[in-house]
């Protein structure tokens, strides 16, 4: 009975992901709160703010000081085993459903978007614009409620492919012109604190100036299966070690890393 229920859930997930290019999940609130607590701890460490309020952070720290604080927190998060483990526990099951448990992942990227700030924008793009693997998924988790322009947008796979073909083959368009046309296809993803998404970065995605009243704090992480294809560009560094720096090999892979059986089948 349980097995059938799990299979049904999995099939639903698959259907949604194939149609929309993303799926929403619920995060464990205890773990999520511990992530927020840790981030707030770093804010206290690096600023004079005693009681950080993520939502209203634009009233606590001026925008000119934001990026240098963001970089300091980014460094801390990427050093903190505790933070990375908690984040992993949150996403573990969904990542496994998407790419398997034998995965590689990139750094944790932190983004903070103040209302009206034009400095941290990311125009519509796919991650393989820069040579990343098409077998990658991104986990995107906000630490405040997000909606409309305080969130990220995505364009579904069918419409993304249409636009990407134009980008690849057209000689008369500029990116601005193509994206102007794409505006109608944009889908904002509203998320409550406690929810996160996994999306395919092959679909066009990005953000615009945050026109809501709250600051947005979010983290995104890239995952792919250890053995799925890497960058198509031979010399591109979006590979193990240089881009995916956390590797989770399973037992048989470790076995072969340890012994030299591979030398015998050359």
């Amino acid at each position: 009975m349980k097995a059938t229920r799990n299979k049904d859930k999995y099939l639903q997930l698959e259907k949604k992901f194939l149609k929309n290019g993303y799926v929403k999940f619920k995060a464990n609130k205890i773990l999520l709160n511990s992530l927020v607590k840790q981030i707030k701890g770093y804010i206290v460490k690096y600023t004079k703010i005693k009681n950080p309020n993520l939502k209203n952070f634009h009233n606590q720290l001026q925008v000119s000081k934001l990026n240098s604080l963001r970089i300091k927190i980014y460094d801390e998060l990427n050093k903190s085993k505790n933070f990375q483990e908690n984040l992993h526990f949150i996403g573990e099951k969904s990542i496994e459903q998407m790419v398997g448990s034998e995965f590689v992942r990139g750094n944790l990227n932190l983004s903070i978007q103040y209302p009206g700030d034009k400095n941290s924008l990311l125009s519509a793009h796919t991650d393989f614009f820069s040579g990343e693997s098409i077998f990658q998924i991104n986990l995107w988790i906000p630490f405040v409620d997000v909606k409309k322009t305080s969130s990220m947008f995505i364009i579904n796979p069918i419409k993304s492919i249409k636009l990407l073909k134009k980008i690849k083959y057209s000689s008369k368009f500029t990116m601005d012109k193509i994206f102007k046309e794409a505006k109608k296809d944009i889908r904002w993803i509203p998320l409550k604190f406690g929810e996160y998404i996994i999306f395919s970065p092959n679909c066009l995605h990005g953000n615009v100036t945050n026109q809501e009243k709250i600051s947005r704090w979010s983290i995104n992480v890239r995952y792919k299966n250890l053995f799925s294809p890497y960058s198509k560009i031979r010399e591109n560094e979006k590979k193990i070690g240089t881009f995916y720096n956390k590797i989770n090999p399973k037992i048989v892979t470790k076995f072969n890393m340890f012994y030299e059986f591979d030398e015998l089948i050359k």
Partner: protein
Amino acid sequence: MKKVLKPYVLNKKFGEYYLPVRFQNKLMKLYCEEKSLTYSLPTGEIVFGNNYIQLKTLIKNLKKGEGLLFMSLSVLPSENKLRSIFINLLKKKKIECHFVFENLVIKKEREYLKINQFFKLIKFTK
């Protein structure tokens, strides 16, 4: 006021070279510091396709007083016809171009000639 340079980067080989973008950015930032120029956010070309759509968009959106920064002359299209289209666009808007590897700055109209001369010499010496 300091001149603003907009970097343009490739995530694939340019000529005989390859350098991960994050290192290209570091070198370009350093270049701007050394020459007292203002560095701004880089634009990366799309790795698939050969229409240089990001470069075209970048040139089109360049404001007065802004120049372009390239890692090398080899970043420009190697195909003569396509390269000429871009050189004409640059000339028309009088865009100052900086090339880090060659330590070359192109400002005046007649200096744009140097771009094609470079590609010719590369071809002769291959």
